[in-house]
């Protein structure tokens, strides 16, 4: 699955996107955030407060309780500041 990162999530992780194979234990958005957080210091820094991270599944806003299902692309980013 493809993960894409924006703004300070991208800067802290040090990648704009990557392909990952999710462990079978990851089924919800919340599971994904907690799993990513264990992947190293940069992830720990980016996801220190997972509750503030906004997530989109296949380019649609998602809640942390939502299931990932067969998503192709999941995006992680800070609260949006456009306009």
């Amino acid at each position, binding site marked *: 699955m493809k993960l894409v990162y924006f703004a300070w999530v991208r800067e802290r992780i040090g990648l704009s996107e990557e392909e990952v194979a999710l462990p079978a234990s990851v089924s919800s958005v919340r599971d994904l955030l907690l799993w990513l957080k264990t992947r190293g210091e940069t992830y720990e820094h980016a996801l220190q407060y997972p509750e503030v991270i906004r997530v*989109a599944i296949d380019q649609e806003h998602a809640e942390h309780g939502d299931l990932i299902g067969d998503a192709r692309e999941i995006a992680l980013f800070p609260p*949006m500041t*456009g*306009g």
Partner: protein
Amino acid sequence: MSVQPVIRVQRADFDIAREIEIATSGRPEIGAVVTFSGLCRDDGGTLAALELEHYPGMAERAIGDIAREALQRWPLNAVTVIHRVGRIAPGENIVLVLAASPHRQAAFDGAAFLMDFLKSKAPFWKKLIAADGSDGGWVDAKESDDKALQRWSASEGIKR
């Protein structure tokens, strides 16, 4: 015929007069056009520019969802949303929202609705570039922007 919103994410500036002309030409039923433009603001001479980042694809899609919701809620004849990305200096345009309708209230309300949802639901992020050229960090989202959505609380079509 259903109204197709005009949605553009671009680096280039936009011309408000030109966008009004495009939205209204050949539509004599339009009696009111409201445009809102958001500009890059410098509080006290500390800012060289903003760097606007977006999520290509989702940005256009999210704006499209918001525009379609506005078209369902008000009798609008035209909706245009243009959001710039990249480096934008103080005084330059960042965003244009245009709503046109037979009467003024729908145009005012439609434009305000579009702008309120754009702020919190469209995937754009602003980074500050300080006057000395250094990285000034990312702009924090404002609680007041989330609160602004509450006045449109009857909106079922837009995901929270």
